[in-house]
């Protein structure tokens, strides 16, 4: 793998590479780490591992003395009252105050990370309080300790990744499996649609049958039935009479001379019909290269959870989702859980993911039956600095996709003219030419929930 990357880097260098860029690429390639599934447990690593320090105010009598913790139930109760909360929030807006309810937090209630994953409406009570984040990080993390050890001696360590891993902090080990995730995501979608007035989707007309049926007076039947179809009956009578030679001149028909057989009566009859619904296929693409460590992944993943939930609601659960992770090569993963929790490592080649999606769509002939949406989350870095591989794939994708939405979570003090992806997409003018098909949203990597939702609006409206 490493050799592969080295070779890739060499090729790129031959193609002309600025020193700054090379440094960047090298950093990413050399960054330690392998993809894996974050377990969601930030427990001590084996051998000298250490837990983040608890502060004095984190200790309370009930847990310490009696092992009493409030259970996970409140969250479920919260979901039940969500309608009331949303209504309250709407009222707030009418009264001229900002909304207070936030959603989209996936949390693991209870201990040990084995509990179900649920979506919880949350809020925050704003006050004037001191912000500790501007003090040097070192001091902030200072804590007390006890036991042996000289000054300067290392007494334990904790992997960096674990702490910054977005997936790990967000989702937990869902005991009930994908179903739990789906049902709460559906609720979340409903909330999002109602609360943020996300636009409804247009029915694109691509249909696919389901095992669902409706009953309608569509079938015709001769002789008996519920409603007489007069036009069809008249036509049938005429046909019979022509056969009988009862109509000498078709340009001058005297209806009073026509013979009417009971068999000619045509009725509409109640019949079972297959129902057709539009169907969506959503591809989620996530850059899980080394540079995505921490915040960018958090933003991207949070946004994809929201989009996923929203589509789930929009299509009344008739959404099929495919998940693709990519660094320099892309792979499809089976479920959202893996998608959500995979750790970052390696370099970046955006084209690989787009190529994979194109292949999947091609092979499975998906564009015939589906509205296809592609959402891609990245930090905007790409080894393919001028997009000469990526742009053709993207153009191909835009032939069948209903919408391609690209989220760039960029480092706050990034390069002034945008990241590589922003640059080459800008040069290609695809964004201006096909605004109904391609959207891009670049946000700072420390974007808050409101910004993420605004981003969704931009991507899908």
């Amino acid at each position: 793998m490493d050799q592969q990357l080295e070779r890739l880097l060499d090729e790129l260098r031959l193609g002309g590479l600025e020193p700054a860029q090379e440094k960047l690429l090298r950093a990413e390639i050399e960054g330690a780490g392998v993809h894996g599934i974050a377990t969601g447990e930030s427990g001590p690593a084996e051998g000298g591992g250490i837990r983040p320090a608890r502060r004095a105010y984190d200790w309370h009598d009930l847990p310490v003395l009696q092992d009493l913790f409030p259970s996970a139930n409140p969250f479920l109760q919260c979901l039940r009252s969500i309608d009331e909360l949303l209504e309250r929030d709407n009222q707030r807006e009418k009264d001229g105050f900002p909304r207070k309810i936030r959603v989209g937090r996936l949390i693991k209630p209870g201990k040990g990370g084995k509990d179900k994953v649920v979506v919880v409406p949350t809020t925050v009570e704003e006050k004037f309080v001191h912000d500790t984040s501007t003090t040097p990080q070192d001091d902030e993390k200072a804590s007390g300790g006890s036991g042996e050890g000289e000054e300067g001696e290392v007494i334990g360590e904790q992997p960096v990744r674990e702490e910054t891993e977005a997936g790990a902090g967000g989702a937990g080990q869902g005991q009930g499996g994908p179903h739990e995730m789906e049902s709460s995501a559906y609720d979340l979608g409903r909330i999002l649609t109602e609360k943020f007035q996300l636009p409804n989707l247009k029915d694109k007309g691509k249909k696919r049958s389901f095992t669902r049926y409706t009953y309608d007076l569509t079938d015709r039947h001769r002789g008996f039935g519920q409603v007489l179809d007069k036009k069809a009956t008249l036509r049938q009578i005429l046909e019979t009479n022509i056969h009988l030679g009862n109509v000498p001149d078709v340009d001058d028909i005297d209806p009073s001379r026509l013979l009417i057989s009971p068999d000619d009566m045509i009725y509409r009859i109640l019949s079972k019909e297959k129902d057709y619904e539009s169907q969506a296929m959503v591809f989620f693409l996530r850059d899980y290269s080394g540079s995505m460590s921490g915040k960018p992944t958090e933003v991207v993943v949070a946004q994809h959870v929201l989009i996923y939930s929203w589509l789930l609601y929009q299509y009344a659960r008739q959404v099929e989702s495919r998940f693709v992770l990519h660094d320099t090569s892309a792979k499809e993963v089976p479920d959202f859980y893996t998608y959500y929790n995979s750790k970052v490592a390696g370099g970046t080649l955006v084209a690989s993911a787009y190529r994979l999606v194109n292949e999947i769509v091609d092979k499975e002939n998906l564009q015939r039956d589906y509205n296809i949406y592609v959402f891609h989350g990245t930090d905007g870095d790409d080894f393919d600095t001028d997009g000469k591989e990526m742009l053709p794939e993207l153009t191909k994708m835009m032939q069948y996709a209903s919408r391609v939405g690209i989220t760039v979570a960029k480092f706050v003090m990034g390069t002034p003219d945008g990241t590589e992806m922003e640059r080459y997409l800008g040069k290609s003018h695809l964004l201006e030419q096909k605004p109904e098909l391609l959207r891009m949203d670049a946000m700072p990597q420390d974007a808050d929930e409101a910004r993420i939702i605004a981003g969704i609006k931009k991507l899908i409206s």
Partner: protein
Amino acid sequence: MELIDQRTKKIMEGCKERARDAGLRFDSETLEYIVTNRDLIELTPKLMIPNLYDYWVHDVEVLREKGRYELYPSNPYETVINTRPAISYYNDNNPDWLNVMIFYHVLGHIDFFQNNLFFRHTWDYDFNGRALSDKRLIANLRAEKGRWVDYTIEFTRGIDNLVGYYNELSRVHRPAPARPDSRLDYYFDVFLQTVKGVRTHEYVKEVERYNRCKKELGGLGDQAFFSEIAAKHPEFEALYRKHLTRKDGRRADLIQFLIENSPFLQKEDNRWMRSIMEVVHGASMFFQPQIRTKILNEGWASYWHERLFLQDDRIRGHEVEFARVNSGVTVMPRVGLNPYALGMLLLYHVEELAEKGRLSYEFDSLADADKRKIFDRKTGQGKEVLFKVREDFSDFTFINSFVDQDFINKHQLFVVGRRLNQQRMVWEYYVRSRKAEDYRQMLLDQLYHPPHIQIDRALAAEGTLYLVHHFEGKPLVADFIPNTMLGIEYLWGGPVKLETTEAVASPVGQPGIGYGPSDAGERVDLQKQVQFRRVVYTMQNRKLSKQDL
């Protein structure tokens, strides 16, 4: 919730007797309840006060990651509640020996609540009872005013961490003034300086005039002096009388100030809001001492449960089980701060110091290390000093006075630092310092400390509420400023300004390139170069703007 059974109550009464014999002092009535998980679900958001008023935020999971304890100065899962009678909560399947340990712990807390002077203002009433009447008041208002009640609660809670807790304490503790301000004091100290704002030479002229009157007329001097004032300033008498009746308004905190002075709240239609603000203010005031005595309070309770349990003859045979549970409570973790352990060890330390007479000038002035080691006056004052500490100290004074090098050495304490190892991609925890002053500073840095925000009264009189945040090294959380100010503006009914300090990101280094963990070290450096500037936020017509000062 139900009360514990009679048998268990009897055990509690036995604990009370033994605790009294050991010197603890508390009311004899207490209430012990069995709580289930279901009860806890309801109690936790209400800060364990069963009768606290209803508020919708209690039903929502609250995001607390940002300065959690700064936002909520109270203990969400406390066993004992400082009410009359004191309430405490128990798991229904605790074995007797464990209940004995917890009872002693609880009695330690009750003793602390009822004797520590930082709780002085909570002694004279039952908070739970008052909460019930407050809850009914709010429920009634809600039936009448609907959602506006919740807005009022919300906006007042937005500033409930700025309550003048120490004002309240000093009001409670201050002896009644021996005599009201004399007319003379008022004339020279307040009337001339504040009301009239006279220049210095005029002021001096008045002083001279007064002296002349006294000299020429003797006993009638005052009368003559003031008759002249009455002629010159006809309003003087009325102002003086008003001054006498006025409460000490100068020291009102933000909520009180709004209640008294907000033009919006003075309106007939809005007067009801003031009672809600009083309720929120009262609740906040009630919780203030708890968070300021966390370490001392828990240490005190742990000290006594350990002492008294081991002396208790009723539960012989459970020492090993006790030891196991107790060590979970009272052992200092390798990394982190356990207030139970820290407080308890420090109390033992203080007891030893007092017992040996080391809390004295004589010991302090002793320089010889060997002599210091064997210094022992056998004063027998350990207990006495401990009870004094329990009465007069808060976390700050406790830590500041007694964390010394001997204490650090005895318990092998140190300050833990964290740094990045770039090769191995791990955070390394290391022993940063074993010096007492560093350890003390680390502790003090972690203590609860709400921002110090004052009201500029002169500007408020002109219609703008001008708040000044005194900068103490940390800026305010910027995300929270808009909504907090929105709330204040609503309650004030006019423009609100906040003068504060914020960090300026200095464009040093090349943050554009490089990301990820490989240069996390650089980022630390970046953060160290933070610069600050004064700014003024203005909230007017629900629009926030900001200017540099």
